[in-house]
């Protein structure tokens, strides 16, 4: 079945919202996606909403699936960050993904995506208020998603403060992308944990 040129050929452009001035170009060849991936992904995308998603993409139809449908996929259903993940990859920030964005999401979360790309998207996912910094509220929300009611508010507070203290290099009491990336570079597990199989 015919596919949009972009997903079969090489260049998908992503506008990284909020990162002022940078436009990241994902080269599918550089992600070494095998040829069956777009077909499989289209199958999965289609089965989320068979009546909405066309089988033929030659006219580049403008079809976006809402957040609620995507978040019900078995790979994402149990993930505590599912909403943020989908929002981070959507153009409008509300979680409505077109097929291109869907493919981007799974290719960044695949095994072969480079570390820098994963770090950028991890940062976006954890940045709940989309201000390009991981401030204390962002960290608190992350922690709550990860532990729910297990920790008392004082403990939550302590953990977030410790985190900022340990990772903040330039002393502005919040984590910028550089701080985050620095921390990621010291955690080699990150590449394998930030990974969803599809």
């Amino acid at each position, binding site marked *: 079945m015919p596919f949009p040129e972009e997903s079969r050929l090489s260049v998908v452009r992503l506008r990284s919202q909020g*990162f*002022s*001035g*940078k*436009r990241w170009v994902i080269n599918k060849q550089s992600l070494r996606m095998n040829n069956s991936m777009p077909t499989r992904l289209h199958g999965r995308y289609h089965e989320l909403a068979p009546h909405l998603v066309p089988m033929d993409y030659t006219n580049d139809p403008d079809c976006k699936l809402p957040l609620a449908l995507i978040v019900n996929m*078995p*790979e994402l*259903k*149990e*993930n*505590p*960050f599912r909403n943020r993940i989908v929002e981070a990859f959507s153009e409008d920030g509300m979680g409505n993904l077109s097929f291109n964005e869907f493919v981007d999401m799974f290719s960044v*979360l695949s095994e072969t995506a480079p570390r820098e790309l994963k770090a950028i998207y*991890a940062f976006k996912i*954890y940045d709940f208020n989309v201000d390009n910094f991981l401030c204390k509220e962002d*960290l608190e929300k*992350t*922690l709550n998603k*990860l*532990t*729910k009611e*297990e*920790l008392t508010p004082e*403990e939550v507070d*302590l*953990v977030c403060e*410790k*985190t*900022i203290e*340990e*990772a903040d*290099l*330039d*002393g*502005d009491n919040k984590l*910028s*992308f*550089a701080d*985050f990336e620095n*921390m*990621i570079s*010291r*955690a*080699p*597990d*990150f*590449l*394998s*944990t*930030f*990974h*969803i*199989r599809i």
Partner: protein
Amino acid sequence: MKEIGGRFGTSVLTYFLFLKWLLMFNVVSFLINFGFITIPLLVYDHSPNIPEGVSFRGLELLTGAGYFNYSVLYYGSYSNETLVGLVAYDMKLAYFFTISLYMVLCGIALIFSMAKSFKKNYVLADPASNSAWQLLCTWDFSVTNERAVKQRKNNLSVQLKESLSEGAQKEMLTLSEKMKHFGVHLGSWLLSTGLAFGCGAGIYFLCQYEQQSTTDESSWTPLQEAQTLLVPFIVSLMNLVVPLFYALFKKFEVYSSQRKQIYALVVRNVLFKMSILAVLCYYWMHVVAKKFSCWESMVGQALYRLVFFDFLFLLLGSFFGEFLSNLIGRKLLPSLGVPEFDVARNVFELIYAQTLSWIGIYFSPLLPAIQILKCFILFYVKKVSLAQNCQPPQRTGRAAQMQTILIALLFFPSFVGALSIVAYTAWSLTPSEQCGPFRGQNNTFSAVGVWIEDLQQIPGSQWAVWIYHHVIRSEVFYFFLALIVIIIIYIFWQVTQGRKLLIAQLRQQIINEGKDKSFLLDKLQNLQKSNQYVKQKHPNKRTNWRSKDLPKGDQSEAMAQALLAKQMFEEEERSSSGGVPVPADIPTSSALLQAMLARQRAEDGEFEVHRMPDMHLSSSSAVAQAMQARQASLTRDSDQDYSGTGFFGDTSSAVVQAMRARQTAEDSLSYSGSDVMTQVMQARQRAEESLQDSAPAGPSALIQAMLARQQAQNEYDDGY
């Protein structure tokens, strides 16, 4: 694979991936050996030379002797002739070169994968106890099972609580406690090494005993054959029990970090297994080789038995260890809990099995076939056992580092040990007289020597002979090679030391920048405050753009935003350029800031430009120019033409002059983003000027300033 990863996480997944990788090694080995050695023999000589009276009994599967002894399973049944078929196929050379080729291939594959894994996973600091790391980097996104997710959340909260309480308790231990810890460590290390050597000695005496009761006859009684099973049985039993015992040490031994604990466990296990293998090999090389006539086959049989029993015990261990403790944990003693899948222990068992297989290649070329079967069955058994019995590991293990350690372990003691034993056998030991491809020679390697002599007769292959004599057999060559390698290693080591220093310096620089920024922001705010105060006290002074009813916050915010925009901009530039940040950036930013501050002050009517308290002028040209321009314009009120700044209105030239000076200063410092900054400044300029004209229309002008900044940023966005 996906469901294992989904339920148990990545560290358990590494075990199964490792198993698959080892399987691949064995498949390659089997194919090579079978293809190059066994098939020619089978083709040439269909009938194996079995003496009469020996037929296949079931016991052979267990002991490896008897019928198997005369089959192609062992070294002994390979002929030493040159098989004449389509080509003259020299079995001796084929045997020798096949095995060396396989060993070399293995070595290369291991070195490459070790280097690759090391490069990817090497880490300088230990962030494991770091709560930042725990919070942000450990969540395993590939876990999709609901129960597993819940469990992980629990684990994470437990770990966070632990680390919080640990942090609170990190006081200095008293001397007596330190002594106690030291005593406990010493005791456990002594115990573990004692155990390792004790087991080794026990095995040795057992082998001696067995040797006394066996003879060299070709027919053995069933009792004798059953006796041969004793040694492997004991060895496998020890292999099963002792690591569990080592794991118990964890209960009363306290290490300062989890990493050290894992290292200690690894070292102990490796020591234990290597000592057992060392004793066995010593026994084989020195005692068996002298006693039996076809000793290689005997060694091959012993290895076969070891492999087989190891397999049996692995299955039994999986059954008892996991299934039974699951039952106990669930029904009888719930406090004990469901067993965890101990990745480290299982991987050690795999490495041990692979070591046996590698040692056995020389003595029994088809041993990898058995290893393949073993890996296959083990995979499915472990998978089922995992699904039914175990729960995911409690500690979010550092899988990547473990993987590096394991591959390094596979290479270093295991492969190198096996290689050295085979090499020792090939080099120094006399092959047996009556069986095998190398019968009648002094040592195995002399086969190659004979071949080279034959080659000398053939004209045109003198180069091979020359290489043999001058490269392979000469010590000088190896000496120089080793020297060169050592020098290269030393050079690389120095380079890494230098890089480490550089990293530390750069980190310090980042911290300093942050401090600079906050310091200057503070200064700005103080300045704003004091100016506001001054204005209020002297209202008849020339109040240009600071009207009283504008809240101080807006103005300082505009300035601060301009500053911040510039700062963010700089940071991104730096992070995107990827290289070492040019130190000139720092004086640039501070110079510009100071220029702005200077200008601001000047407009408030302070003519003393020489008073610049606490401001470190690093790049003085920009500031000097700004100051000069301002002074010049203030003394003579002339309308200059505005070069390049098209949209200025007809306002006071002082600020325009300063602006222009600053712009040229910026250009001269070749700062690439200067156009954005100038736009910002110009926008603010416009705001100020309009404020000058109409005081109450302040807010809209500021809004304009902010809009202009936003526009500048968006322009940059789109124009990238």
